């Protein structure tokens, strides 16, 4: 559809936790599809969603949790039928390397654990999963006063790495990125599976190209890259038919 | 020139209140205002210049009102075309002496003075003996130097009336004498009427065609050289003793004769 030589620029709004993996993914995609340049806009899922509500010219929206994408779908911000879960993650309990006493959730009640870092359940997906998991185990009431709520999951990781807290909840992918400086104490079963949904933005003019990128995320190549960064395979398939109605975004 | 002043203004400062009620008129081109410290001389002249707005009354030059409370006339200071020498000089601290003096001559938004304006600045600096100070800033001047710069700045635009608040107070007697002559010459050349506030009897001598005497916010009396034929009022000297004493020493022998007062 594009004149030869002219580059199509695809803008992907992706959750901050995908930053490193998506930098590699987009490079791979650009190699595969000449004429398409992919730019990424990283931020918290909530921020990205608000930007799209206010008409930010994104073509693809990648959220770190189901709830945000649900809200986007309800608000008619994404193309119905373009949404898939393309990857998953695990929730892990981590401690500073030397803190070997903590081996599972039960140990968190011990007096040796003064502070537990996690993302803020109100706004950070990792925090939400952690809170749900703790509630299910009946530990939330007891542990809540010890919890330090980070603005992002990375902040929780930071606290653990610097030894400011005795334990923290982060995604498996985060822990993998810092494996020399933190110790994974346990993988915590979550109440709902941790999935990353992706969808084409309703307002986009480049919906066909956007959909192609979504398809690419399903590919073996993309999945391999994601696995390298510590994500868990969790793939749902795209409906056979996706009706595209390109919106009226003008490129800035 | 005919200068008419008839104004009232009340100033408050804490519990203190100062009431200015100045009324006088002068037909002469040389008017001296004279009076005790704090009697309202500076305030009156500021009202003529448009820096202070009286509550009531009228100020007119040659019949044209600069201020008239009843008719709602109140010309802004820049439209009054007066020259005013501030008692504390008010030199612009961020400008050099040359820039200060040339300030009123700057037209539009251009950066430099026109050549003829430059010439004028150079001339007035020469006649006020401040040529060597051209590049200095006000903070680098002595008291008398500041006063001369301020005088030059007030006069350079040939205002339609020149108001001077103690113009020579910081000068030595020799310079004082020379500046007086300079001022008189400029006055004659450009026919600018002068109003001079002073404490110096010699100024009265030179500039006092009309002498206005202030006391306590009021004009106590107006004497005019022209009225010298009028009979002297007795008992007046004792009444305002300080003025009397001063008069005895410096004026009695001269042409001044007090008028009936106001």
């Amino acid at each position, binding site marked *: 559809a594009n004149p030869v030589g002219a580059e199509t620029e695809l*803008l992907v*709004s992706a959750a*901050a936790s995908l*930053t*490193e993996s998506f930098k590699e993914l987009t490079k791979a995609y650009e190699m595969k599809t000449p004429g398409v340049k992919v*730019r*990424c*806009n*990283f*931020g918290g899922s909530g*921020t990205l969603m*608000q*930007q799209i*509500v*206010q*008409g*930010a*010219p*994104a073509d693809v929206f990648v959220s770190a949790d189901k709830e945000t994408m649900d809200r986007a779908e309800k608000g008619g911000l994404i193309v119905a039928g373009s949404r898939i879960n393309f990857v998953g993650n695990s929730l892990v309990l981590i401690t500073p390397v030397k803190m070997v006493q903590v081996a599972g959730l039960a140990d968190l009640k011990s007096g040796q654990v003064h502070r537990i870092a996690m993302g803020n359940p109100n706004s950070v997906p990792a925090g939400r999963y952690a809170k749900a998991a703790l509630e299910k185990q009946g530990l939330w009431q007891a542990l809540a006063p010890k919890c330090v709520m980070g603005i*992002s999951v*990375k902040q929780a*990781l*930071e606290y653990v*790495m610097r030894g400011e807290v005795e334990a923290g909840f982060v995604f498996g992918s985060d822990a993998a*990125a*810092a494996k020399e400086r933190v110790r994974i104490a346990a993988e915590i079963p979550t109440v709902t599976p941790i999935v990353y949904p992706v969808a084409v933005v309703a307002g986009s003019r480049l919906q066909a190209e956007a959909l192609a990128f979504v398809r690419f995320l399903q590919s073996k190549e993309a999945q391999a890259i994601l696995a390298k960064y510590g994500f868990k395979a969790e793939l749902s398939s795209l409906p056979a038919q996706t009706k595209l109605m390109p919106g009226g975004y*003008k490129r*800035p | 020139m005919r200068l008419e002043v008839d104004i009232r203004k009340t100033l408050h400062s804490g519990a203190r209140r100062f009431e200015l009620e100045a009324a006088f008129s002068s037909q002469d081109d040389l008017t001296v205002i004279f009076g005790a410290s704090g009697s309202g001389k500076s305030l009156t002249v500021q009202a003529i*210049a*448009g*820096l202070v707005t009286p509550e009531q009354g009228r100020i007119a030059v040659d019949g044209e009102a600069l201020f008239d409370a009843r008719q709602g006339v109140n010309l*802004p*200071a*820049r439209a*009054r*075309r*007066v*020259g*005013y020498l*501030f008692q*504390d000089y*008010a030199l*612009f*601290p*961020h400008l*050099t002496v040359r820039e200060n003096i040339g*300030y*009123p001559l*700057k037209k539009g*938004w251009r950066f430099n003075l026109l050549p003829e304006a430059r010439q004028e600045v150079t001339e007035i600096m020469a006649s006020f003996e401040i040529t060597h100070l051209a590049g*200095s*800033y006000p*903070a*680098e001047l002595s008291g008398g130097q500041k006063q001369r710069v301020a005088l030059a*700045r007030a006069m350079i*635009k040939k205002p339609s009336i020149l108001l001077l608040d103690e113009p020579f107070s910081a000068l030595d007697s020799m310079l004082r004498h020379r500046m007086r002559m300079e001022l008189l010459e400029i006055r004659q050349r450009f026919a600018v009427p002068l109003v001079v506030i002073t404490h110096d009897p010699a100024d009265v001598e030179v500039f006092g065609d009309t002498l206005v005497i202030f006391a306590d916010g009021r004009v106590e009396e107006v004497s005019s050289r022209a009225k010298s034929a009028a009979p002297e009022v007795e008992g007046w000297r004792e009444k305002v003793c300080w003025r009397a004493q001063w008069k005895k020493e410096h004026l009695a022998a001269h042409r001044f004769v007090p008028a009936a007062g106001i």
Partner: protein
Amino acid sequence: MPDLTPLWLTLQIASFATAIAFVFGVAFAWLTARFSFWGRDFLDAILTLPLVMPPTVLGYYLIVVWGRNGWLGSRLNAHFGISLMFTWQGAVLAGTVVAFPLLFKSARAAFEGVSTEYEQAARILGDTELRVFFRITLPLAARGLLAGTMLAFARAMGDFGATLMVAGNIEGKTQTASMAVFDAVQAGDYTLANTLVAIMSLVCVAILVTINKLASRGRAGR
């Protein structure tokens, strides 16, 4: 050597933002400093408010107003077909709002410190109000204005939350130095973060020192 595009972009954005904030800040400062009107203190406080808001929250309100579907943004889009979202103009807008209170407050204090006697003298010497302002008030307030401008510039350069919200964090397009640093810290790449911070600090110090030097040369003799 890390990619310096974000830094370059930051400098441009911060310069524009400071310039705009300067114009508005000085105008409001002059109004509040020279005229006494009902609700003046209130206005003063309102204009300081952007400083109290967490930048992200400020950014949220900015897009509510200026976003394509926003209150003003939708009109902008309808009439001129332009949108500030995800553009560097949007970043300038965010930077301006964030820097404004600093300039406004500093300028107001500076103007209030200028003795009205000098302005009176200029009026008597024939100046209109506009000329008095540009030839007397502004130069005499220079010191305070300069301090305010430096604060505003630094703040605009360092802004992160508000800019991110309006302009996005798009590498090579709207990613400013602050965002790059933030990203590096988030990614745990501390070497990169430290390098970026060092470069950013150096550049900023160089700029501030230069402004200071230039300004004090202009003030020589006072």
